[in-house]
């Protein structure tokens, strides 16, 4: 069970993540994008999802990652990600509800390069009961 006290709280990610050109190239290659001067619009999920895994599976929150299904996703991109960006990533648990035995959490990821907010994204994650 997810700890209901975690709702409304923001959890910092561990350390920072530096985006490399080879990561952007690999992501772009999968979708057939040849211009890799900036990252494709969904690239930041690579950072957010791994941060979610390390943050949300902590015992004080209690998400069972093995039962997770991705329900929906939204990105707000303030400027495109480029190689050399150094991101800190926080996860904010916005809502938690239970439906048909599943726990459904809405979590927000804010990617900052220094003081600059570059991408905010929202994920609805369903932990199957």
């Amino acid at each position: 069970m997810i700890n209901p006290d975690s709702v409304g709280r923001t959890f910092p990610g561990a350390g920072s993540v530096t985006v490399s050109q080879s990561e952007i190239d690999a992501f772009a290659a999968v979708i057939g994008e040849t211009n890799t001067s900036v990252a494709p619009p969904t690239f930041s999920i690579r950072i957010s999802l791994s941060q979610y895994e390390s943050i949300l599976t902590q015992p004080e929150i209690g998400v069972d990652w093995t039962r997770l299904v991705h329900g929906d996703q939204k990105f707000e991109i303030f400027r495109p990600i480029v190689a050399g960006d150094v991101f800190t990533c926080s996860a904010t648990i916005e809502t938690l509800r239970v439906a048909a035995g599943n726990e459904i959490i809405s979590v927000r990821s804010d990617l900052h390069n220094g003081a600059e907010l570059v991408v905010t994204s929202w994920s609805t994650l369903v932990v199957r009961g």
Partner: protein
Amino acid sequence: MVNIGGARMTEVGMALPEKVFYIDRALLKAYAGASGDENPIHQNEEFALSVGLPNVISHGMLTMALAGKYVTEWAGGSANVREFSARFIKPVIVPAGEKVDLTVVATVTEVDGNTVKLDITATSAGVKVLGMAKAVVVK
């Protein structure tokens, strides 16, 4: 937008041309590596069946990334996408040895200066796989 030299204006209701992407197991493996999402339901058929899925399924985020490619192609590049959202309403099922389609179309729903909102439809094998898929681009 200004209509220059007979170029078609972007107007509300305008339908964008359809594009078909193909997804196979090799693409799932490549996306797993590129995204860091190594969940075995996207690569291992035995595992996928064991958790009640009909077969290996695509990462929802791969489906969304391809729909994103569709949007960026029309918008003139990745740098022009400001918002992008979708619900994963049905899985894209990817049997071994097959290439399954992801067919994407979009309609212009709002034009405000150079900002354009799109409603996107993505289907695979005739089944709608993304719901409420929308993008805001600057064009």
